């Protein structure tokens, strides 16, 4: 199983690597959305600083939404998803390889870009660190819930708008926890409890969502 | 409580009556939708069974 996971992961990354700049699009999109806000709000330092964390989180959500509909779609179309579902033992390696490759390709580049974007919003170093910490804990949850949404809307028509409707309500707790963390840190208040909640949520999501994914994908291939 | 007080709801008429009106409106709408659903399904079944007889 581990061997299969390795092969699948390697191949997944290779496919995307060969497709060239595919992984770049959500990243540029993320950057663009973030840089729209100063025009919409104001370029005043205090306003930007206050809303920086929220803007960055929302932009990340949107860029994730851009790439999520493709998560299982191509495998459904070329029939390989059906083959994984027939070999039940290969479904778990497939799901984990898929999610991991997705994180490597789409999420980690965004996270790496975030400190630079935060600087554009005059965020102090301490806040940037906390923001990154919440992003690291929160983005796995976003990805897992998003993959759940992608699996649920696999058979649906017009799946991308539908996907937003399915997953955004579920993202609200993550948003609240993460953004309040940053706000509290800005006021020099303790944030340990909040980070612990976020981490616990992340662990529960990692433990349970792949199991649900397994059943939902099986429904999706019929 | 006299009739005038009842109409004006102690100054809250603009809020109380619309609230009740919306509720009754939605109830009526749901009722009509359910009836229409039933009628549509009965028509559909009849169509199917008619097809069979023709065949």
């Amino acid at each position, binding site marked *: 199983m581990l061997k*299969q996971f390795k092969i699948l992961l390697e*191949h997944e990354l*290779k*496919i995307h690597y*060969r497709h060239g700049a595919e992984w770049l699009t959500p990243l540029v999109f993320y950057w663009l959305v973030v840089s729209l806000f100063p025009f919409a709000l104001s370029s005043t330092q205090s306003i930007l600083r206050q809303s920086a964390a929220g803007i960055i989180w929302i932009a990340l959500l949107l860029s994730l939404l851009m790439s999520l509909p493709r998560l299982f779609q191509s495998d459904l179309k070329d029939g390989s998803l059906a083959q*994984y579902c*027939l070999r039940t*033992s290969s479904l778990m390696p497939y799901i984990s390889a898929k999610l991991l490759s997705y994180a490597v390709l789409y999420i980690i580049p965004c996270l790496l870009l975030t400190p630079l974007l935060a600087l554009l919003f005059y965020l102090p170093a301490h806040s940037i660190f906390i923001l990154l910490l919440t992003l690291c804990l929160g983005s796995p949850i976003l990805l897992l819930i998003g993959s759940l949404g992608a699996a649920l809307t696999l058979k649906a028509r017009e799946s991308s708008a539908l996907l937003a409707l399915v997953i955004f309500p579920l993202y609200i707790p993550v948003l609240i926890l993460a953004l309040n963390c940053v706000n509290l840190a800005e006021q020099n208040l303790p944030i340990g409890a909040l980070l612990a909640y976020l981490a616990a949520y992340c662990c529960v999501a990692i433990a349970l969502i792949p199991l649900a994914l397994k059943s939902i994908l099986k429904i999706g*291939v019929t | 409580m006299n009739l005038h007080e009842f109409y004006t709801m102690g100054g809250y008429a603009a809020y109380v009556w619309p609230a009740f009106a919306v509720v009754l409106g939605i109830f009526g709408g749901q009722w009509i939708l359910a009836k229409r659903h039933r009628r549509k399904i009965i028509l559909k079944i009849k169509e199917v069974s008619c097809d069979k007889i023709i065949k």
Partner: protein
Amino acid sequence: MSATPCLHLNHFEAHTETQTLFNNINISLAGGSLLHIQGPNGSGKSTLLRMIAGLKPHQGTVFWQDSTQKTVNIESELFYFSHQLAIKLGLTVQENIRHLQSLHGGHSENLSSILEILGLHSKRNTLAEALSQGQQQSLALAPLLWGTQKLWLLDEPFVALDSKAKRWLSQLLNRHLAQKGWVILASHEKIEYLEHPIEPLFLGALDA
């Protein structure tokens, strides 16, 4: 019931919104037999295969009894092929074979001999998207070379293959049937080069 292993398909039926495609299909196949599903387009050939594979909900049951009459679930013992080839267009031929080997298991033969048989030796490092339809199809059928699955479900396996590829596929079928395996095959064409008896199943008669 004989002591040889036997595959049973019971109570398969499929309906569309307005008509019945097929119903009450009950078949018992002794080991080493090939079931050839025939019928016009839209008669439910692919549907039946997908149902047997478990990719479509159905009320029927599929199981096989081995020589001791024990009932075994076939789920892990089937190979399913359809026009959705399940090969990765962004990978090379060689990588695709590795991918198929990890998926379908079985003891893997020497890679170059597999490529030789498929006639893809010179294209081992080409991307699969650059292959012709027939070559892609033989690549997708490659797991039959080394796999240990007992039941093969093949949906139009011959359709894009050239005569050479058709011959090696028929040889594989012959070998598999000689080893008392089962093949259920849907195809418009007549099956050539086959040394074993074919059991036909005609679909689409209900509608006439």
